[in-house]
């Protein structure tokens, strides 16, 4: 079976359109990040989050009233799809005393007819939060630098820049979507971001590899044609792998449970954006570079 027959789509020719779309998406994301800011989870802000499972469905308003009575009215309460599970996020307290005990005690006293079980609890000190945030950014930057070095070594610097631009693009768009939909950024989501980086890169490298090969074989061709040809040749593989990966992630998204939900959502977005960027962002950046350096050399320097 072959879904993709010998295609000859002019991907590179559409780079301006693609660029426009990407820039719009990124700008929307950045605006949202500036206005709303990223919705950091307790991992990064510090504080306590409690996941409770009740015997019967609960009323969020009722919980809020109970929390307000003990001066914790500004806590964030989120209901899970199942209806009898709740996530309560308590702000960082100045005092060292354990507020979660107070909350649990109060809930037990007030909701006598609806017992609950503590499913999970996370308490992160404020300093740890900022430390983790710094570590996360550091991790993403370090991996980008490593990638830049590796691709420069295996390919050329131009390719490395193309790949890293595409990765920035992926992370920015995913981050923007997270901010836009108010999704919580936890440690697991950062792990998802790094996975997206790895995945998107995987895709990009496959295309680059073909370009590298074709540059040797098709010496007389125009750059645009070589790049287009390479993308088309690897298109069926790109789509196939993206499809299989996408399928398993979608399954994880739907059946993996609450804990892994946002993590797999980040991956879903990342795979779509990553596949798109390896075709429409990474290669065009390299092509553009080739064309410009050629222009500078006055067309004669078609040498690589």
């Amino acid at each position: 079976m072959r879904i993709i027959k010998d295609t000859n789509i002019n991907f590179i020719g559409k780079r301006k359109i693609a660029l426009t779309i990407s820039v719009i998406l990124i700008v929307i994301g950045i605006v949202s990040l500036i206005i709303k800011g990223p919705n950091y989870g307790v991992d990064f802000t510090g504080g306590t989050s409690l996941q409770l499972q009740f015997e019967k469905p609960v009323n969020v308003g009722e919980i809020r009233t109970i929390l307000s009575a003990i001066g914790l009215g500004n806590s964030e309460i989120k209901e899970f799809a199942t209806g009898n599970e709740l996530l309560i996020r308590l702000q960082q307290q100045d005092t060292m005393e354990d507020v979660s005990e107070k909350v649990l005690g109060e809930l037990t006293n007030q909701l006598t007819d609806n017992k609950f079980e503590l499913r999970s609890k996370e308490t992160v000190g404020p300093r740890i939060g900022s430390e983790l945030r710094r570590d996360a950014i550091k991790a993403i930057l370090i991996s980008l630098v490593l990638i830049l070095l590796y691709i420069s070594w295996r390919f050329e610097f131009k390719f490395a820049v193309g790949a890293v631009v595409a990765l920035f693009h992926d992370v920015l768009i995913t981050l923007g979507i997270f901010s836009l939909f108010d999704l919580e950024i936890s440690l697991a989501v950062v792990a998802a971001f790094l996975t997206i980086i790895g995945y998107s890169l995987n895709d990009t490298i496959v295309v680059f590899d073909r370009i590298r090969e074709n540059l040797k074989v098709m010496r007389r061709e125009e750059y645009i044609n070589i790049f287009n040809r390479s993308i088309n040749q690897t298109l069926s593989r790109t789509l196939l792998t993206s499809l299989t990966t996408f399928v398993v992630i979608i399954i994880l998204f739907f059946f993996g449970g609450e804990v892994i939900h946002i993590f797999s959502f980040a991956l879903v977005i990342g795979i779509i954006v990553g596949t798109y960027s390896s075709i429409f962002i990474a290669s065009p950046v390299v092509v553009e570079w080739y064309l410009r350096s050629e222009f500078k050399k006055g067309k004669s320097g078609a040498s690589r």
Partner: protein
Amino acid sequence: MERQSRSLLYRLILIAGLFLLASWQLYPSFNLSRLIQKQEVNFSRAQAIANVRIKDIKDALLEGNLESTILKALKDSSDDKDAREIAKKIVELDDKISKNEKRAIKRGLDLQGGTFLVYEVDFVHYLSNPNVAKNPDTQLQQLLEEIDYEAKHQDLDFFDVLQPKFEEKGVPLTRYFGKKGESDRKIISNLRDESENAIDRALQVLRNRIDQFGVSEPSITKQGSRRIVVELAGILDVNRAKSVIGKTAQLEFKLLRDAEYTRSILMRIDQVVKQRRYGTLDSTALAEVMAPDTTKKDSSEIEEKVRDEKEVDLDELFGSTPETEDMGEGDTSLSVDKEMFEENPFLAMLGNVGNMIAAPKQNMKAIDIILNYPETKEIIPDESEFLWASKPERYGDKDWYRLYFVKKTAEITGDYIEDANVNIAGEASSSSMTGAGAAEVLLELNSRGAKDFARITGANVGKYLAIVLDNKVSSAPQIRERIPNGRSSITGMRDINEAKDLVVVLRAGALPARLESIEERTVGPSLGRDSIQKGQYSALIGLLIVIIFMVIYYKLSGLVADLALVLNIVFVMAILAAAHATLTLPGVAGIILTIGMAVDANVLIFERTREEIRSGKTIRVAIDSGYGRAFTTILDANVTTLLTALVLYQFGTGPIQGFAVTLSIGIIASMFTAIVVTRFVFDFVTNRWEVKKLSI
């Protein structure tokens, strides 16, 4: 041809060998669930025979006295031959289970339920303790706090900040640390060693405590220069565990200052508060209060007198200062003596319980703030300090805490404890187990401690001796006579469990420094079970879909890729088991992601082979160049993914590292299965039969 078949044979041996090795590694993991099921059956049989709760059986198993527990429960009422037999069976199976467990894939805390705690050693507390610093005073305390703040907020090493800070403030290090004339460098390096040592001791103390607490396979590790990570699997009562772990358990016996002296200090503090309120110091008022007090010397009278109380808002006392805002919402009101508040704002916040000074709970924070005023600190002599009681007492409609004024240096410390035991006072009323003061902890000092104790009690008959645990006074009995045998007791436990926990920490010894809890992650057992179930479920569906898809798309070749995929998962699990790595929920996600990505290598190879076939090459050559050309692509693509996984590992804690590990193992294993294993199958088939058309 000869060489070709020999190479095939070698490859077959390699693959089959690895597969056998993997199966051998995985066997305990599979076996384990079967054994655990069998054990459950044994448990319920034991329950039926001896009428013991399963929880008790498990506890007895941990403590190693199962047989006696079961026999005791029987009370000779039924056949003890059965009981002996089932006890023996359970113990044997338990042995087998723990042997298998050692070789099985370990489940992370998020999958089996448990708690992950991070503590930071409080260097300020450690370095200002008289065992480490010479004559520590408030100036040292302040300096250390500043250093700590800077180190934490700028992510610097505490000791790197220490020396420059002292220099900046013009305080020679030798005033507090090291010997006279010692160089700063030497002192700092000694302090560093000492604190390193202290953390190692703290680890040991924690290990002892947790061992006594009976948690299976706890993990206690040092992280960085001043952190300790404690991981407890499958624990139910996290709060109790936390109170046992986090307690410094520094036991000290301190002499109380006499009442007259205490009163004079309190009155001077009162003037400070008044001055702050009105802005001026009323000297006549001061003279008045400094004079011997005649109006209310009989303290017992005050106790009986009903306090005429009123509630005032904090702002009324402090004005709107940053301090009041720090105190958060909720309780901002104080309970004060109505008559006294205008004239003696501080004393009005206090009252008497028995013959001791005390304050209602709601006033404690305000009083702490007042006691920390710089002016107040000047009034309180360096060798004395105020300490709160550990427990409240109920008078009227309020909980009162006593406030003790004690000599700062301890007469005796907990280092001299020989043994500690729980005693239930007043056994007569059995239902009073939960009543206050029902349980006490009996202390026995070693010979040196007993000698000191005898000397001190002998020299201070009539005075009060406060028993201080972690800077909270648990009681302050009057010394009636010399106590020669080194026996004393701590009273005021809430219940028997608290007394038991205290015994655990006292026996294990005090922590050399206070630990501050900075991170806690707890997963309940039910969530862990759900996560495993859902993870397995998703993995199976995902695997099935990918397998079917590959067969549809690549026909028989797809089947070969599927074989590689399944083998890949077997290898990943086997490597996890062999490395005794911990499988976390993100780790499961990593495996699932690998399922999707593992076929990538085969997709690359097959697409390439198809291209070669289309360009008219023979099957053999097409396969050859398909593999050959796809190889560099696969390598480059996988190396970059490995790079990010490596960074992920470096950056992450527990669960995320688990993800990085499974992802990396998955990538490496997939390179082997997708390239070596599938290639073998293709070579084997084309070598055996004359293949005209490749099913691809």
